[in-house]
């Protein structure tokens, strides 16, 4: 009962935030009704997916201050679990997705236990390495299609199939991921006010101090890492059904790990709205750059240059991202 109350309680935000959030929600709900291009629809789905990745990353990376650059491996575990189960045993999405989450969480515990003995940059580097190793394993593992990857044939399972989450029209995918998106926001809203959330924030503040207040820092980090992993794995499974053609190089690349962390940091790590703002800025930018510049002028990789510039800008101007700037302005106004 109390958990439920906390989940739906946004009262500690200023009224302006709630109004804006409400308006954005209405827009997201009605977006497919308005005329739109297929490109815009794909971009919106990407935006929602990456918002969810960012929200997951934000629990451990934002509230906990543990910069994790290996989230792509869990995208891969989720995506491959769903695809393999569908192709080999015809197990539908709604069953394979939770199983994928179980695999991801189990893997995250095994990895988290040694990784969280490391601190700061060493932790970040180790997460990159772990993610790349798993990608390399998938690339030579025939059971999951090795480097060629796997393809879900829409002819074999004729859409629309709500159980297997296979559709021809993107609008179905849009509403499924939108539902996950709202659930994600509610979950993080609960998390940030929960005991674990406070423990993580205290650890980020000062780990020795946190431990002297009875917090088992190592265990708290491992638990939160598993939560972040679950978010990413769910979206990974969705990604598999949506794209229908996955290979380790796409789903588990370092680019994705970095993009997830970058978006959350740009928007504002350690705040509820940060990852959504970050995804809202970066995903359209990424899509349009790829569409216009990348293809037409032949400027492949311009998006990477722009990410680099953004990282430098954020760390120089306001390490707490866009949301940090908003809060700074508000604080000044109050005074």
């Amino acid at each position, binding site marked *: 009962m109390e958990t439920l109350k906390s989940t739906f309680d946004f009262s500690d935000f200023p009224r302006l935030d709630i109004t804006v959030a409400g308006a954005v929600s209405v827009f997201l709900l009605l977006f497919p009704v308005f005329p739109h291009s297929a490109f815009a629809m794909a971009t919106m789905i990407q935006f929602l997916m990456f918002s969810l990745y960012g929200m997951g990353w934000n629990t451990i990376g934002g509230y906990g201050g543990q910069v994790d650059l290996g989230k792509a491996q869990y995208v891969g575990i989720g995506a491959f679990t769903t695809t393999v189960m569908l192709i080999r045993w015809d197990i539908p999405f709604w069953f394979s997705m939770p199983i994928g989450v179980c695999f991801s969480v189990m893997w995250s515990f095994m990895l988290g236990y040694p990784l969280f003995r490391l601190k700061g940059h060493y932790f970040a580097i180790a997460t990159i390495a772990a993610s790349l190793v798993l990608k390399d394993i998938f690339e030579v593992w025939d059971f999951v299609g090795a480097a060629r990857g796997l393809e879900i044939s829409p002819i074999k399972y004729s859409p629309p199939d709500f159980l297997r989450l296979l559709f021809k029209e993107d609008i179905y995918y849009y509403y499924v991921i939108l539902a996950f998106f709202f659930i994600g926001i509610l979950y993080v809203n609960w998390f940030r006010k929960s005991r674990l959330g*406070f423990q993580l924030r205290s650890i980020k503040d000062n780990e020795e101090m946190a431990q002297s*207040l009875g*917090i*088992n820092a190592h265990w708290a980090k491992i638990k939160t890492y598993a939560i972040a992993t679950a978010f990413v794995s769910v979206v990974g499974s969705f990604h598999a059904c949506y794209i229908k053609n996955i290979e380790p190089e796409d789903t588990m690349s370092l680019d994705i790990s970095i993009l997830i962390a970058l978006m959350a940091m740009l928007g504002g790590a350690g705040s509820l709205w940060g990852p959504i703002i970050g995804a809202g800025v970066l995903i359209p930018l990424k899509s349009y750059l790829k569409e216009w510049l990348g293809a037409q002028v032949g400027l492949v990789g311009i998006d990477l240059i722009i990410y680099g510039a953004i990282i430098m800008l954020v760390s120089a101007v306001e390490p707490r991202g866009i949301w940090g700037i908003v809060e700074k302005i508000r604080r000044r106004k109050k005074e």
Partner: protein
Amino acid sequence: MALLEVHGLTKKFGGLTANDDVSFKVNEGDLIGMLGPNGAGKSTLFNCLAGLYPVTSGHVFFDGHEITDLKSHEVARRGMARTFQVYAASGDLSVVENVMVGCFMRTGSGFKAKDRAKDILKEFKLQHLSDYMLSEIPVAAQKRVTMATAVGTEPKMLLLDEVAAGLNPLEIEEIMTTIRGIHSSMGITVMLIEHVMELVMNISDRVIVLDSGRKIAEGDPKAIANNPDVIKAYLGERYVQEHAEEFK
């Protein structure tokens, strides 16, 4: 059995012996001061008691159980809280949220933690600062917030590490009132490390003096102030010889 018993505690960092065979007892309801010149091993002793450093040899008993090898979060759960000398506040948590972290040790409910944190802040007369970030308030208030946070864990015993360092006389007066309040009205056993002599002498029932890692004296504040060993530790051998007449 006393609340805290330390038997022959020794802590070595490589070749350096920071604490050498220190033994003492703290009874429930005591207010103990620990004095000693710079580098005497006071903070190291606290860190050993609180489980931050592993002990080289010796035993620590708290509330009837051995806690020598426990980690700091386990020691905290047994009811021994502490504050830190240098607290680097990165400022991600507001004052009330800081105290809530302490309260969360005993409750899983956010609402209960918040209520309790508010009560504690009221008791510490800090309620007007609730919504400020820790980095935005004066140092003296910051120190009282860290004490409030430690009290939030509902400890049996509180270790205070140099809470008066860098404060002006007026603020020290305020801190003393706070410590007395924690001790008498909340009934928490307090042990404090302090450089500021007058604070320790004023409020402690009993004083322990460390020098070069060894316990050199223990007793009531008055006796300690006239103890030649203590004066030697603080002012040097020559001072004691020159003033030998006064100590007889």
